[in-house]
């Protein structure tokens, strides 16, 4: 019988620890255990055999760290490891039919981008290489284990799915806070792994059986897949100078019996456990009744930290990351201004949305690249799940591939062509798909007609094996101004689709009010009605107080807001307030212009309002030249005279850029323009970019065009950018003594190929002498010096 069938028929047992047993057989602290597959094959076979005798059905190969980062002879190690396991099964005199070899895959030991330097795709390739060898050598399944990062787990699982047809088990290692090291909750991991098509999922390592029980409970509550539990033999502790684990085989098996009774389908052990632990566990659990995993019927989307469950309380999806009808947003997209997009995301998160829609499509830009970049950047700083919103298949595929979690996919509809494009992606990468009730014939005018399209999409999803819970129907809100019945049809459709098809629903709410006055009022009431009719998700503008008010009111009235706490909190700012004193600057010092004063003091919002006030009596350019620039000069001088410190200088820079924002909003072009173009980079090998970012802030403030190449930038890339952008100046930063070599190389390359380009270098370990030695044009001891140099 195949292991996939067996998973639904009986409880299975994985083996226990390998490391502890190898150490007993003489593996020393610095030695690589994987090499023992070659040098001590009999020992490895013997350990596998001892686990089979103890009752394990699944033995995991000694390949935890067998990847190309650590080994150059994988072609020898991996087949040998599989062979050692095969030999153990040959020697075993029990039921060989139910013994399986799991090719063991552990973490790479490197952090993926954006936190580390390993690109996601490279991690997929490294995992694929090992897994392919494991599968070709004859493994029965793949076990991905001890993963402490959701993104790396995704890379490994994707690699397994792409490089073999074997079943894949995945277990993650949680710490005592109940989260992965990079923050994911069990529910977030369940969403991600179910979406990507794992066959069994669970937990291993880090904790003992007692500490693991709570996490096991969560897995069993939310997972529709069989759950694996493989704890350590308790927590490590020191006794007479030796590491010992505090739970013995008997205690271990007692807890494992409880775990089995709770419903875990696969039991095993990790660090510190031995065949005795497995034997005791098998003895205590083999006679317990077994029930296969049940579909929990949950609709889950996730980020790298948490899952959002759709179907209980209404979910708000922020719609603001979308260029439609937004001039400034389009401009940001054309300029590749990712900061603008990220800021839109953070602002919506602060308003309380649960999910962010991300649409960065514009005819004149490369949408594939932009969507991938936006998703990466958004996910590097905020933890809301994202709704990937594009009509382009290639953009959707690329974004789904690199997304860290299980996304919402916006969207599919009843057109065969669109279903053929999008549904395979949903199946492969995992996601919850928004299904619009429109097809080749248009949008039906009745609720029944829209339900029929939803049914058609549902049937098509079944063909691909996409779970019903991973479909959310959007029955489309249309402008009530063009058809008196349109809002009612939409509301009826929500109810009908929910009640009769059992599918969740979503609506882009604001469409309803097109062409009518006081749109917010209409939107807000429509939102309440939609919720009352069972709407699960609203795509909306969280900056609309009326709609947010409608949401909070609904929650309070429906008993979904304990003690009306959220309602009270939301409306507390709506009480009549005194004019905020902070928004204007008191001008005790009458000699000084209030805008200059606000900038010098580093007051952001007052700088904005003072600039707006100034615009009433002066031209934009005049304000820039007589107020903002003098304020910056004053700040610069104070800094140079050491009367002001760097953080204060930065506060002033931020205040000045707010003043620029106010002034630029009424200008045709951006006004203050230094003609010089400056490229900035932190050199190869260095990831400290705080200093470079400070220099960038100040240069931009002074009107220079800055192209920021980021950190860890290779010399060739700096040269290429300097050529392409026709840069006047290249600024390089290095913080480590070890990376000054890369700086020297970059300067040498620039001097050789582009002698007309000036170079300015800086960073904690640099000196004027070093700068001269490597041939740089200028050494800047701080950010202001760079500005002064650029001004020359």
């Amino acid at each position, binding site marked *: 019988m195949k292991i996939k069938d067996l998973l639904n028929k009986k409880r299975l047992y994985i083996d226990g620890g390998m490391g502890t047993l190898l150490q007993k057989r003489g593996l020393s602290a610095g030695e690589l255990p994987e090499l023992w597959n070659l040098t001590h094959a009999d020992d490895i076979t013997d350990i596998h055999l001892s686990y089979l005798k103890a009752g394990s059905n699944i033995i995991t190969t000694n390949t935890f760290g067998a990847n190309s980062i650590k080994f150059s002879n994988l072609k020898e190690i991996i087949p040998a490891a599989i062979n050692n396991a095969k030999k153990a099964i040959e020697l075993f005199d029990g039921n060989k039919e139910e013994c399986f070899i799991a090719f063991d895959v552990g973490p790479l030991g490197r952090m993926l981008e954006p936190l580390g330097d390993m690109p996601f795709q490279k991690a997929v390739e490294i995992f694929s290489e090992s897994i392919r060898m494991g599968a070709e050598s004859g493994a029965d399944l793949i076990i991905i284990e001890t993963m402490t990062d959701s993104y790396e787990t995704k890379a490994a699982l994707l690699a397994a799915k792409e490089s073999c047809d074997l079943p894949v088990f995945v277990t993650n290692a949680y710490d005592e806070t109940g989260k992965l090291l990079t*923050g994911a909750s069990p529910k977030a991991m369940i969403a991600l792994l179910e979406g990507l098509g794992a066959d069994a999922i669970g937990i291993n390592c880090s904790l003992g059986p007692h500490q693991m029980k709570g996490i096991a409970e969560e897995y069993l509550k939310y997972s529709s897949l069989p759950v694996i539990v493989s704890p350590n033999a308790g927590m490590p502790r020191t006794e007479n100078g030796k590491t010992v684990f505090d739970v013995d085989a008997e205690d271990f098996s007692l807890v494992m019996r409880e775990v089995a009774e709770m419903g875990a389908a696969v039991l095993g052990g990790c660090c510190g456990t031995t065949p005795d632990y497995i034997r005791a566990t098998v003895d205590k659990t083999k006679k317990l009744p077994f029930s296969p995993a049940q579909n929990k019927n949950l609709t889950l989307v996730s980020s790298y930290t948490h899952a959002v469950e759709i179907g209980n309380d209404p979910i708000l999806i922020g719609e603001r990351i979308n260029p439609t009808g937004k001039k400034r947003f389009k401009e940001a997209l054309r300029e590749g201004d990712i900061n603008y997009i990220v800021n839109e995301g953070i602002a919506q998160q602060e308003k309380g949305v649960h999910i962010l829609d991300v649409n960065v499509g514009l005819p004149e830009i490369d949408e594939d690249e932009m969507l991938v970049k936006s998703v990466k950047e958004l996910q590097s700083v*905020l933890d809301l799940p994202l709704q990937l919103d594009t009509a382009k298949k290639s953009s959707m595929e690329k974004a789904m591939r690199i997304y860290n979690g299980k996304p919402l996919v916006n969207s599919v509809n009843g057109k065969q062509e669109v279903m053929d494009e999008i549904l395979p992606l949903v199946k492969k990468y995992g996601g919850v798909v928004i299904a619009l009730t429109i097809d080749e014939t248009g949008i039906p005018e009745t609720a029944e007609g829209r339900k029929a399209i939803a049914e058609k999409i549902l049937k098509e999803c079944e063909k691909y094996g996409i779970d019903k819970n991973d479909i959310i129907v959007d029955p489309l809100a249309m402008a009530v101004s063009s058809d008196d019945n349109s809002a009612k049809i939409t509301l009826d459709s929500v109810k009908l689709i929910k009640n009769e098809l059992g599918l969740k629903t979503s609506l882009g709410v604001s469409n309803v009010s097109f062409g009518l006055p006081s749109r917010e009022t209409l939107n807000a009431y429509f939102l309440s009605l939609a919720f009352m009719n069972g709407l699960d998700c609203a795509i909306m503008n969280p900056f609309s107080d009326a709609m947010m008010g409608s949401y909070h009111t609904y929650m309070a009235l429906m008993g979904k807001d304990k003690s009306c706490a959220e309602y009270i909190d939301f409306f507390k700012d709506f009480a009549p307030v005194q004019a905020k004193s902070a928004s204007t600057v008191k001008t005790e010092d009458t000699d000084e212009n209030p805008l200059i004063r606000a900038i010098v003091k580093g007051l952001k919002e007052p700088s904005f309002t003072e600039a707006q006030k100034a615009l009433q009596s002066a031209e934009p350019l005049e304000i820039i030249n007589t107020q903002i620039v003098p304020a910056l000069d004053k700040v610069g001088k104070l800094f140079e005279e050491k009367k002001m410190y760097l953080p204060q200088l930065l506060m002033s820079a931020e205040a000045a850029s707010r003043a620029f924002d106010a002034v630029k909003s009424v200008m045709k072009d951006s006004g203050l323009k230094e003609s010089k173009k400056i490229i900035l980079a932190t050199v190869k090998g260095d990831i400290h970019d705080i200093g470079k970012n400070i220099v960038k802030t100040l240069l931009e403030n002074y009107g220079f065009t800055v192209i920021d190449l980021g950190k860890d930038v290779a010399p060739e890339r700096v040269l290429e950018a300097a050529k392409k952008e026709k840069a006047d100046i290249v600024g390089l930063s290095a913080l480590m003594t070890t990376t000054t070599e890369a700086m020297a190389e970059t300067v040498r390359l620039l001097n050789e190929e582009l002698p007309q380009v000036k170079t300015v270098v800086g960073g904690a370990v640099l000196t004027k002498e070093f700068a001269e030695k490597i041939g740089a044009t200028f050494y800047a001891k701080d950010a202001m010096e760079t500005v002064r140099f650029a001004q020359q």
Partner: protein
Amino acid sequence: MKNNPVILRTSSCEEIIPDKKMALRFMGCKELSDSLEEVYEKSLEEYKKAALFKAVYKKSSVTFFGEKGIRFDFGEIESSDLRKNLEGCSSAFIFAATSGSAVDRLILKHTRLSPACVMVTDCIASSGIEVFCDLINDEMKKGRKLKPRYSPGYGDVSLSCQNDILSFLDAYRKIGLTLTETYLMTPIKSVTAIVGIEEENQ
């Protein structure tokens, strides 16, 4: 080679409060203006929510060879600076600590939002990890006379020994600490160090 035990410690920011004086020193300030004070308080609150401190340490033997060679249980280092630091020691604690990846994300977030805030947060985070290291240092000190802790990358100790140190401590599995290709640590607010043991009364 002896298999010495690995000691693991975890603390939240309720126990570890970043030292304001130290943070200010990192910023190059003596005092904060009112508007900066506000930024400091806000950043500190966010930092406290993000930081989760973890440390591992393990004892290693120390022997000297050649002119500036030092042999540890994890490998060898050539350095006259570290050798001077370890003079008279026959063992040392090898030590690694981190404040976790949520701090990295917090710093990344402010990089997008506010340069002043990112600088303040960065300095708070540097101070936080130092305070935590001091705490672990005190724990190691019990009944021993220790040398000042010495981190790779200082003086003539190359960063390339980081790999051996992290493997020796199993730092990835224990505390989630990893290296980039150029031996820099992620999470970025992390410390590795060698702490010589001069005398031990045990």
